[in-house]
């Protein structure tokens, strides 16, 4: 399958649709560009890194984040808004016994506001079909070998909710500041295809 969506029939349909809306004065092209640019500019994995670092240093923030992420994100100046409707976010926590990994088996649903645009492999048929049935093997392909007794939980973002993994804080980081901790987090760590 091609990962270049620009030439796909749906992309052509969207361009055609947009052109009709513009021709009829229903959409202002420059306004649309401004809105998209603002959203994509704000949507970077650095947002997710910041959330994780705060959760590592503030146990009460962590508890609120796991309980109700949408209500807690504004504490660090973030939200799941920006799209047509605010999306529900679930943050799932890795522990010594449990490792979480996220997929959208039906398409490519992803918390763009917190993680930025999704990586190509996240949208690939290979990842989407295999991680749900054989997560341990897929994680090994990513270079992450989990102990046999670690329980793996796969979260399929198949409907309205989006997921972000809260990775375990690396050992030997007691002296790091919150900003330094944020630099240790990786995008794959937030999807669950890597440890941090």
């Amino acid at each position, binding site marked *: 399958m091609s990962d270049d969506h620009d030439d796909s029939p749906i992309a052509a349909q969207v361009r055609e649709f947009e052109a009709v809306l513009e021709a009829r004065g229903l959409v202002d092209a420059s306004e649309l560009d401004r809105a998209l640019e603002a959203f994509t500019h704000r949507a970077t994995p650095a947002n997710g890194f910041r959330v994780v670092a705060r959760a590592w240093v503030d146990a009460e923030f962590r508890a609120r984040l796991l309980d109700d992420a949408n209500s807690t994100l504004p504490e660090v100046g973030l939200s799941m808004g920006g799209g047509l409707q605010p999306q*529900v976010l679930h943050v799932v926590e890795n522990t010594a016994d449990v490792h979480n990994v996220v997929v959208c*088996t*039906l398409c490519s649903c992803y918390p763009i506001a917190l993680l930025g645009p999704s990586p190509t492999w996240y949208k690939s048929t290979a990842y989407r079909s295999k991680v*749900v*049935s*054989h*997560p*341990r093997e897929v994680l090994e392909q990513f270079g992450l070998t989990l102990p046999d007794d670690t*329980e*793996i*939980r*796969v*979260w*399929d*973002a*198949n*409907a*309205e*909710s989006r997921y972000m993994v809260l990775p375990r804080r690396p050992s030997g980081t007691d002296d790091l500041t919150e900003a330094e901790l944020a630099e240790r987090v990786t995008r794959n760590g937030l999807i669950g295809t890597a440890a941090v």
Partner: protein
Amino acid sequence: MSERYRTGDRVRTSTVDPEHHTRLPHYARGKSGTVAGFDGVHPLADLRARGIVQPQQVYLVEFTARELFGQGDHKVTLSLWEEYLSDE
């Protein structure tokens, strides 16, 4: 809106493979799982794709890999509209 299921309830997913749009993935059809929590009330995707807005309770439902794929020791959680579920 009253919810038909509660956390901990055992449920079975629909076996129907509809011709229209749905958000019940093929691998999770006709499978038994456990309700792990509520996931909000959202328009049923199957109808919304046809322009009909009918909000309905969505549940987080957890399945064992063994139930879904006949093998494996992991768990898989999906968000499923009440429409997709029946009593176990």
